[in-house]
C-alpha cells in the first residue's frame, strides 16, 4: 500500500492519478480531504490529518509499504516531517520518496532550502531507503496568476529558471516509489530548458481569449502584495520572507 501525502497539491493529485491507473492501492493523506474526495470518489481512500499530530500520522501509516512525503514549506517543516519519519519507522515503511527543494542545503541562507537540507540529512540517517526529489519551480505555480489574470509577476529580472510541469514531478515520484534501487538518491527535476520570464511569456502559444502576457519589470514590494487568487492568505509575502532568510 502506498500513502501519498500532500495529495491535493498539483504533483500530489497527478501522482495519485498515476498510481490508481497502475492499479496500486493509494490512501491519500492531506489537511483538507474534501477536494480530493470529490475528484477520486470511490477510487482512493482519503484521510484528513495534520503533520503536527503524530497519532494521526501513525494511524495513516499503518500497513503502508511505500510513502510519498511532502508538506508545504513552513518554519515547522522539519518538525512536521520528522513526525512523519518517526511514524514511518514505527510502521515499518519499506521505501520513502520525499519532495525536497532545489539547492537544499542545511547551511543555505534561503529559508526553505535550509529546511529541506536539514531534513534531507535527518532522513538519510533514518534507516528507511529513500529518494529525495528536488523539483525546480512548478510551471503550475508560475503560471497561476497568468492563467487567472494574464499577468506574470516576479521580481526576478532577466534571470532564467528551468520551470517544471507537475506531471513530470509525479512521473518521477511514481517511478522512484514503485521501483527498487533509488535508495539514497537525490534527483534534480527540471523542465527541458532554463528560460527567462519574458521568454516564458513569449512561449505561451495560445492564451485564453482576451488575455495577453504582460512583461513589466517590478520591484519586490508590489510582488509581496497578495495576488487575487492566493493559495494561502498572504502567500506571496510568506514566499519573500521564506526565501530571504
Amino acid at each position: 500500500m502506498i500513502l501519498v501525502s500532500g495529495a491535493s497539491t498539483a504533483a500530489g493529485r497527478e501522482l495519485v492519478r498515476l498510481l490508481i491507473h497502475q492499479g496500486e492501492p493509494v490512501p491519500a493523506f492531506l489537511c483538507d480531504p474534501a477536494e480530493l474526495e470529490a475528484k477520486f470518489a470511490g477510487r482512493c481512500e482519503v484521510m484528513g490529518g495534520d503533520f503536527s499530530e503524530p497519532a494521526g500520522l501513525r494511524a495513516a501509516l499503518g500497513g503502508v509499504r511505500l510513502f510519498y512525503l511532502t508538506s508545504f514549506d513552513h518554519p515547522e517543516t522539519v518538525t512536521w516531517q520528522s513526525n512523519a519519519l518517526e511514524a514511518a519507522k514505527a510502521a515499518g515503511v519499506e521505501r520513502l520518496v520525499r519532495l525536497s527543494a532545489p539547492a537544499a542545503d542545511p547551511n543555505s541562507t534561503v529559508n526553505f532550502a535550509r529546511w529541506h537540507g536539514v531534513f534531507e540529512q535527518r532522513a538519510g540517517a533514518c534507516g528507511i531507503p529513500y529518494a529525495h526529489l528536488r523539483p525546480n519551480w512548478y510551471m503550475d505555480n508560475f503560471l497561476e496568476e497568468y492563467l487567472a489574470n494574464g499577468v506574470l509577476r516576479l521580481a526576478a529580472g532577466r534571470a532564467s529558471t528551468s520551470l517544471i510541469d507537475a506531471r513530470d514531478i509525479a512521473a518521477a515520484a511514481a517511478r522512484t516509489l514503485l521501483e527498487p534501487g533509488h535508495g539514497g538518491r537525490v534527483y534534480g527535476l527540471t523542465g527541458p530548458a532554463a528560460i527567462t520570464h519574458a521568454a516564458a511569456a513569449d512561449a505561451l502559444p495560445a492564451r485564453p481569449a482576451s488575455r495577453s502576457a504582460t512583461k513589466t519589470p517590478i520591484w519586490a514590494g508590489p510582488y509581496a502584495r497578495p495576488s487575487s487568487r492566493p493559495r494561502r492568505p498572504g502567500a506571496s509575502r510568506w514566499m519573500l520572507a521564506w526565501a530571504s532568510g
Partner: protein
Amino acid sequence: MDVGLGKRLIDGENGSVSHDVPALAGRRALSIDDHAAHWVQAYARLA
C-alpha cells in the same frame, strides 16, 4: 530593479537543466508550450 528574490532562487542549480526527468519518466521533460497547451485545452473543456 530589485532582483534579490529571483536571483537568490535562481543562482546555482536553478539556472541549470537536469536530465533526471527524462531518465525517470522515460520521455522528455514537458516544456512550457506543453504546459500552456494543456491548460488551454482545460479552459476549452470548461467553456
